[in-house]
């Protein structure tokens, strides 16, 4: 009895603190939503109104006038999906080979993958840009997608995952005469679904949010993803905050909706992201 009372006594202050923190955490996002529905005049009124006096949707229309947001939305979705699909396939193939197949030079090749993992992303950008330039791919979807199709991190993550799977099923299939690719495709890959999901979520999120690479390669607004579009929207409407709030909300809302729907997988996946450096 006394123990539960003591526990109760700790729970209530904990709730107070956690709720306070949660309010502080969520407030900027709530304020973003509320501002996006205010007229410009109302947004700069002092003292401020909390709820919009009347819910003004014109800011959203202005976003579409200032930048080709619809196009950029499609660009972002296509970019994120293609990068994710390619990474899942290519990383899984390589990861399976590293985890299960013995061949000369495996250790050295794996070291090469690990080396890429250690290097901060900025060191790749200049030469990558030059490759895009020499291929004539600046201002194109290929520029957004192709370098992002390969990932040392993803290979590493999935290799760890494959190494943790039991080998018996795969061995049985091998003895029945299946080749390594069939074993990988039919047996190992379905078992690795949680790992694939984690990598897929991470890749999708990073691709969606990526800013520097798109700023470098695609300067044509019609070819930009939302992140870069938001940067140019800020350039065009520097002080028109309701429009900026509408734009930033539109750019993040899809990811937030997916996050809320799949939060367990998201949080687990991102907890994995530790190795990314």
């Amino acid at each position: 009895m006394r123990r539960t009372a003591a526990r109760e006594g700790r729970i209530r202050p904990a709730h107070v603190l956690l709720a306070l923190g949660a309010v502080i955490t969520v407030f900027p996002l709530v304020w973003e939503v509320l501002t996006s529905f205010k007229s410009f005049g109302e947004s700069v009124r002092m003292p401020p109104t909390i709820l919009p006096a009347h819910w003004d949707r014109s800011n959203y229309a202005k976003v579409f006038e200032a930048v080709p947001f619809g196009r950029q939305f499609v660009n972002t979705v296509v970019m994120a999906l293609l990068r994710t699909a390619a990474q899942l396939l290519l990383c899984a193939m390589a990861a399976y080979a590293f985890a299960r197949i013995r061949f000369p030079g495996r250790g050295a090749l794996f070291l090469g993958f690990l080396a890429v993992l250690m290097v901060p992303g900025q060191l790749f950008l200049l030469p990558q840009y030059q490759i895009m330039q020499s291929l004539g791919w600046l201002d194109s979807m290929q520029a957004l997608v192709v370098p992002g199709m390969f990932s040392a991190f993803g290979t590493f993550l999935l290799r760890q995952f494959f190494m943790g799977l039991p080998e018996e099923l795969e061995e049985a299939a091998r003895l029945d005469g299946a080749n390594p690719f069939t074993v990988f495709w039919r047996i190992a890959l379905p078992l690795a679904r949680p790992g694939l999901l984690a990598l897929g979520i991470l890749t999708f999120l990073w691709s969606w949010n990526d800013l520097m690479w798109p700023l470098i390669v695609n300067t044509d607004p019609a070819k930009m993803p939302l992140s870069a579009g938001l940067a140019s929207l800020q350039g065009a409407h520097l002080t028109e905050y309701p429009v900026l709030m509408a734009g930033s909300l539109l750019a993040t809302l899809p990811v937030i909706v997916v996050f809320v729907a799949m939060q367990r997988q998201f949080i687990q996946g991102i907890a994995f992201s530790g190795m990314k450096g």
Partner: protein
Amino acid sequence: MSVEARTGPVVPGRRARASAVVGRELRRRERRFRHRDKWWGYALIAPAGLGLAVFYLWPVVQTVYYSLTRWGAFGGTTWIGLSNYRTLVADPEFWQSLANTGIYTGLVLLGIPLSMVLAVLLNLKGLRGTGVYRTLYFLPVVTMPAAVAVVWRWLYNGDVGILNQALSALGIDGTYWVSDPDTIRFAVAVVGVWMTVGHHMILLLAGLQSIPADYYEAASLDGAGRIRQFFSVTLPLLSPTLFFTTVLSVIQSLQVFDLVYLIIGANTQNSLQNPAFGEGQTVVMLFFQKAFFDNQRGYGAAIVCVLFVLIMALTAVQFRLQKRWVHYA
């Protein structure tokens, strides 16, 4: 077993011979597998391997090479040895950006104790609604950094931003947080903490949950109170996770770009430029400017090479220091 059943009692010699035959057959098959597997191995690795070699591994070599060259106005490179690095050491803008990045990194680390408090609270037995809290704290982690920057610039607005309105209600005079050289770094770091607390909290929570309950029972049988338990059980057993979180946070903070880039605005080098630009600019922003706008690719390459070395060095130092405070059970 089945062999015995079929052939009746087995003479030891015969049995050994039979198993030797089976063993040989198995080894033969395995060799054959392995011989063919070799090519499967190369084939499976080839697509990712080639892509990484072309777009990642070779570019690192190229970037290091570029850092030792000057970029011609019409392309082409001239070898200039360590000249870019000498310029870098004498460039106040570089030192300023390095200091800004260092301060940002340090301030964001202060978010880790905060994350730990949240994780400990969430780990309390009998607490309900942990799922809701986790979701809410995690929202900033999944929000696009570019959008985060745009939103916080609005909160920080010196004239009508909600922060200053709230402060003036309390009788405090706010400032132009993101265009005041004295406040810009703190303003940016607060956003950095806001964006990472949820992530660190999740990592630490996983660490807390892996501490066996017996340890606490043993400690409480020995008469240790809650506080004592925290310092003699929780903290040491959580130290590997804390270490990992710290290393991760430092590596990520040193590369900060999106957030600061959009909070302080572009480097326009005219009257429209943010007066706090110099105090805000990070190392990666300087690289971005030099390499892609000022056409000083060699110099830009030198900047990121130095950043790379710094990251490696700081990580190595942390691994060295971990002996002092990290306990591996």
